[in-house]
């Protein structure tokens, strides 16, 4: 269900609607395949997301920052924002963190 929903094209990923534990591995693979480029992640379709997929996204943020590329998550769905708020995670890249409001 989640695997085929993830679509990528030229450094852009649309996050699938259900990002549970099962979605973590495919999401990791998807992100790994896009290393070396700036990346935008569309979170508008997310209806459910758990800690494992946040770990993957946080790891991606770290990986991209180390490589000197930018990564941006945009159009967060309310489910995405709410889960991030509950977990207290912040997905901004380190160099921009002071300018961003994490919620």
């Amino acid at each position, binding site marked *: 269900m989640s695997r085929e929903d993830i679509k990528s094209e030229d450094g852009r990923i649309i996050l699938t609607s259900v990002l549970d*534990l099962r979605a973590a591995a495919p999401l*990791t693979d998807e992100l790994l395949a896009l290393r070396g480029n700036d990346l935008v992640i569309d979170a508008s379709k997310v209806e459910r997301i758990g*800690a494992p997929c946040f770990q993957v996204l946080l*790891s991606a943020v770290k990986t991209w920052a180390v490589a000197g590329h930018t990564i941006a998550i945009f159009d967060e769905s309310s489910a995405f924002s709410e889960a991030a708020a509950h977990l*207290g995670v912040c997905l901004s890249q380190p160099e921009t963190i002071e300018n961003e409001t994490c919620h």
Partner: protein
Amino acid sequence: MDSMADIKQTFFQECDDLLGELESGLLDMEGGDGDSETVAAIFRAVHSIKGGAGAFGLDNLVAFAHIFETTLDEVRADRLEATPDVLSVLLRSSDVLADLVRAAQNDEELGEEVTTGLVEELSAFVGEKAGAPDEAAAAGGEDISFAPLGTAIDLDDVFGDLDSVEESQRFIIKFRPMPELYANANETVLLMRNLAAMGEVNVACDESQIPTLDVLDPEGAYLSWTITVQTSNSEAELLEIFEFVEDDCTLEIKSEELPDDTIEPELADDETIPAEEEASHTDVEGGKDGVTSGDNTADKDNVVSLAEKKEKPTATAQASKEKDTSDATIRVNLGRIDRLVNLVGELVINQAMLTQGVFDAGLERGDSVEAGLEELKQLTREIQDSVMAIRAQPVKALFQRMSRIVREAARATEKSVHLVMEGEMTEVDKTVVERLADPLTHMIRNAVDHGLETSETRIANGKPAEGTVSLTAAHRSGRVVIEVCDDGAGINRERVRSIAIEKGLISEEDKLSDSDIDNLLFMPGFSTVSKVSNLSGRGVGMDVVKRAIQAVGGKISISSQPGKGSTFSISLPLTLAILDGMVVDVAEQTLVVPLTAIVETLKPMPSDIHDLGAGAKVISIRGEFIPIIDAGISMGYRTEPTDPLTGVVLSVETEDGARAAVIVDSIQDQRQVVIKSLEENYGHVDSVAAATILGDGRIALILDVDSIIDRGGSAVSFHENSLAATG
């Protein structure tokens, strides 16, 4: 504040989701895809329903959910193997649980006979463990904090105000999940949500252990949390939240009594606390309570306050209120949305009239009025898209209902059936989803009852004993296509034909193509079953299904292959309100052709037009020959065909890929039109999809391209004899 009824309503809404998860989990297990995570998830679903039901005193529901949950617990602990027999009982139990939820929602009581048989079957699986639900669960005490997920938040919202502030305590919770926590289908987000429901929560997440992607184990556990909870609940109640995960994490809860006036006034502010300030706040607390700063140093920037707008700075301000403001879902009376949809429709008509007025006034090109009008058009379109998005719903809930229909039909006919669903997240207008339930139910029953053969026949024909019914939804060229497909024997065309003759629907001399015979199924009064089965033969024929589909602007088609099965395909408009159309003139009438059907428009050259057989004509478009259809004749506006060279050719395509060249006299414009249903106001008319009101107030018909093409071959092409060859 929400009334109790509203909270109960929220519980039932959540039940819908949980029942959906339960059913899809069980179906995964049935399909061999279930793992320990699936079992844990379905266990939690039933457990959550039980907990919420206990809180509302729904004893019947609690009692049944308890035995159901106990059985699932046995499966979860590998003490009971999920054999097909066990799964069959579990699936039926999920159906009954859904019935009980529905009955509770409608304040109805279901008779004991509904559950008795299943309770016995479930009890047989679990032996002496099948006792009555424990008192705590029945009273809701054990489960409220954990089980009803969002409902627990609302309950606390209600009861929170009753809590006396002097009981307020601050707890520091250090929580570090292990990978097993996630592997067992538990989710930190839900734990945090339940914690947030207990009171005011500050969450500090330690992300320092997260590795880079190349060495990350996607199913590992790298995050840990330090959570400060200001609550009137006891430590034991906080511990209950972690009841299911305590073996899969390291957990430390420390408490500190706080007088009320020590609650920071800034928490009462509307603004979120600046990250730095908040981090130091957490450090101070950490120092007081012995939380080592090492855990927090990495998190300074990530400390998040879930405190939210408070009317007054009470100590028990609920994080759930934050949810009220940040959660994008609100429930709105459908009538209000419908009114909005209608108003947008009127807006589109009004905008068209305004455009016409501006045009008639003969303003110069580039005039500011024209520019303003263009902006108005854009805005209108955006409003329309937004309104339509409000009404769009995934077909998932509808599809899930169908899996039950398949199970019941399979049981009634003693056939073994496997249901495959695809595209459940495809979105369709809410009205369409609702009105599809009955026809789809009928089609699914038909597929099982009439479509699939018995297991014996299937084996004899070299097929697997288990029949497959697939239900798919997908977007295709601006419409939604839903297909019900079976791998049964296919339509017995000889039998259909003989029955049609017997019933006087056709005469023996009639020469019908395979497709014509298949379509006889949709004729009123046609039924291939001589005895009325208690399943699909309920006096409702496929003609009723067809009418129901047409009533929502849809079309139904059928295709069948002997021995391989049949496919019923429903094609639906995305919205029932507005479409993009090309406004054309035909024999001094104005027609609208849906833009989604038009591939291209062209002025043909004489060399492009060719005669074909008995007077029919085709046009050559880049080497492809496409039949020509005169819209004027198709619509009955004229009897003599127009010369293709004087008109404009619209190359159109149906959803199933059939193409035709529709000739019209001229093209006026391309614009949005408001759909006014003919079915609702008059009745179904062949070749006409609907009507609309144009900017000048006149009514124009919207062409049904599929129908025109279907009829085109016989009705139009063969009447074009009088037209001399032109190319």
